[in-house]
């Protein structure tokens, strides 16, 4: 009998009687990472990585029963050994490895194979079956190395500052924002929206140092903001507040920005293809390294990616889940108003 099944509540391990990233309330939820499409409120118990715990408290509530594990450590539940391994997606993100009577299954949640310098780098885990995301599972999605994208963003920001424009980077508040802060640190003052500042506090409290940033408040002078770089969540992109800045220009940071028509879609000035998900070569490489005989493909280009794997001789099934992209699922941010 297979170690996992796909139910209308989420990914279920019947031998261990627990769920992984369920989208409806359950008794025991093993959590890959803190993005809102992977972790919901209302579960009686949570198990997650140590660094994800403060994020869940911040995003879901203080009153949660949370067990934590570090990478490589395990617990056993009803005979099923559960261990967490770096997924390289965001701080605290983990692949969930399940082992029962010699059978090994890994649920990746979201992952990326490039080391972003802030999340623990992705580690392939050998297994019999692997559950993979496929957000960018088409061969047109191949990322430039982070350094090159960073250089592009910096060139753009420098040009803006020179021309007296206010630079606003749009990035989801958990993950992409911290990654940008890390990339841009030391060049210009970085101003962050309060939803990002709050998460930064939670992350720092758990012992991960982040470069210095300044929280944007209604009192922050527009002339001061003009000389730095602002980072705001997607919901702020079309906000009234942005229009009150001096010559604002927005740059969206997302893997979708790889494609021109998607860039045009966002009513942003610039788009930078910086993603926290694996690109096409990354997905293929990661799956190869697991040695998995069966690959379940979740959220993204599931049909195409799964067909490709089957044609490449790796048995694969498409699986319907309720995971989306963070860009879609990010909770609405509040306006900054005076």
């Amino acid at each position, binding site marked *: 009998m297979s170690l996992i099944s796909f139910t209308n509540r989420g990914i279920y391990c019947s031998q261990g009687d627990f769920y992984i990233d369920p989208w409806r309330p359950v008794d025991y939820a093993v959590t890959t990472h803190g993005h809102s499409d992977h972790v919901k409120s209302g579960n009686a118990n949570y198990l997650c990585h140590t660094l994800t715990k403060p994020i869940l408290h911040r995003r879901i509530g203080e009153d949660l029963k949370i067990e934590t594990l570090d990478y490589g450590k395990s617990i056993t539940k009803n005979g099923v050994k559960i261990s967490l391994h770096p997924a390289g997606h965001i701080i605290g993100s983990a692949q969930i490895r399940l082992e029962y009577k010699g059978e090994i299954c890994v649920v990746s949640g979201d992952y990326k194979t490039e080391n972003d310098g802030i999340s623990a780098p992705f580690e392939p885990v050998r297994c019999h079956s692997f559950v993979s995301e496929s957000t960018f599972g*088409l*061969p*047109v*999605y*191949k990322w430039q190395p982070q350094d090159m994208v960073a250089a592009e963003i910096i060139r*753009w920001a420098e040009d803006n500052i020179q021309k007296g424009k206010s630079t606003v980077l749009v990035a989801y508040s958990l993950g992409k924002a911290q990654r940008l802060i890390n990339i841009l640190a030391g060049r210009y003052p970085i101003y962050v929206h309060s939803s990002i500042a709050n998460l930064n506090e939670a992350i720092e409290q758990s012992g991960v140092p982040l470069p210095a940033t300044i929280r944007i408040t209604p009192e922050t002078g527009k002339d001061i903001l003009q000389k730095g770089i602002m980072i705001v969540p997607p919901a702020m992109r*079309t*906000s*009234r507040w942005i229009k009150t800045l001096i010559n604002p*220009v927005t740059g969206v940071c997302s893997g*979708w920005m*790889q*494609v*021109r*028509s*998607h*860039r*045009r*879609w966002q*009513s*942003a*000035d*610039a788009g930078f293809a910086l993603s926290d998900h694996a690109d096409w070569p990354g997905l293929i490489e990661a799956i190869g390294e697991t040695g998995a005989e069966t690959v379940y493909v979740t959220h993204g*280009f599931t049909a*195409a990616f799964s*067909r*490709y794997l089957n*044609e490449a001789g790796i048995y694969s099934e498409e699986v319907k889940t309720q995971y*989306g992209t963070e860009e*879609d699922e990010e909770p609405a941010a509040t306006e900054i108003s005076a």
Partner: protein
Amino acid sequence: MKRFAQLIQALETSNKTNDKIDALVHYFDSAAEQDRVWVIALFTGKKPKRPVNSSLLKAWACELSETPEWLFNESYHNVGDLSETIALILPPATALLDLPLHEWITRLQAIEKLPEQEKKDFILNAWQHLGTAERFIFNKLISGNFRIGVSAKTLVNALAKKELVDSNKIMHSIMGKWDPYVIAYDDLVGGSHVNTDNSWPYPFCLAYAMEQEVSALGSPDNWQAEWKWDGIRGQVIKRNNELFIWSRGEELVTDQFPELHILADELDNGTVIDGEILAVRDGRVLSFSTLQQRLNRKTISKKQLEEAPVGLFVYDLLEHGGTDIRDQPLKERRRRLEDVLSRLSPSSGIVASPVITYNDWKELAQIREGSRENNSEGVMLKNLASPYHSGRKRGDWWKWKVNPYTVDTVMIYAQKGAGRRANFFTDYTFAVRDGENLITVAKAYSGLTDQEIRQVDSFVKRNSIEKFGPVRTVKPELVFEIAFEGIAESKRHKAGLALRFPRILRWRKDKTAAEINTLDDLRQLLQASLSLPETPAAAS
């Protein structure tokens, strides 16, 4: 070509026209002369000859990238552009080679007559020596269709700024007949290949919206009433046996409207007329959305000519017998205009915009209520003694539109269409804002062009939040202006009101969901319409 790729990137990293003009000026300041000519050619739709067809390009890209054809097609569906799909799907370049733009064009030209294998060797070799951005441009050079969000007007303004030449002259120069393989840049922008005196347009006379009571205009005898058409305002010039059609946006659109080319033969030299380009069938004006199928196209298919035939409803005569007659009173200009038009063949579809006869303001107000029946937006009132002003001048020309029942909404649900469009999301539900919430106010089938439908469809597919059977809940982001005939109270609708005959007027890409109308705006309109007895009773 790196320099050109940088220009494209600069043009794409800003939504602001001034930034685009600056980027173009900067490019023209530093690029090689022949490259400048080619950039003007490419941005105005002149393409090099196509040396290889796109199915071969696709096959070679699949081969080089080891991509199965079905996966290439999936990718193409997501990217929406063949040149870009190929650029992105190929493996990274093995080494980089930077040749000037015109050099690539010359080399591409040279392979046209070669056997297929040699063409393939050349293309594959080029792909392996170009970065993604340059590859995209290279592919575009082969397939044509360079659309990168720069209008002819923006290009012209940049050239005018750089060369300190009047922009209308440059517009004529670059819209004229010239061959990018032979012309020199200075000759091109200097206009030595055309006679820019022939095309010289007059500024359009523009009307103000009527704010006061119409009776404040005094005696109806002094005012000429016409329908206010919703088309493309155009100025037609015939001088020295050449015909030019200018749009109000100061673009030369002569080639877009072959139906009007008959004027090259039938108008006398030294004639300039002002009118509205409209979709017209059997003398009846069709809706603006019909005309829209004909706008901004480089080529017009036979089908488009049949489905959206174009005519011209002429308002005014500006130049007659080579003389500028704009200071003559309207009454006299109109007399001469009717004389000029009476000599055209009756089948031309080019007629004087009819004058509405009325005895008093009350009667005109009644006539105006029927405006929508002939696809007009209301009536125009022009002082019979007035000259043809330059630009907008208060007092002589007034537009008196029928109640502008429009509302800006955001799309929240989409559903697939039927028949030809069964694969596309074409039926939409729209909402206005009510405090924090979005409230549904209208459902409308598409009034969009096929291209817009494809864009909306791709947005829906990428931004679905929930599925209910065939219906998708989508991210509230796309703003549409909805036109409607009336508004009524309705207990059946959550909004408490219903719109009569709602339809999509236009897709407001310039607006965000934060800027849509509120339920209160509609309630106010409802109150106002309830107090107007002549408003037709709205269905609920």
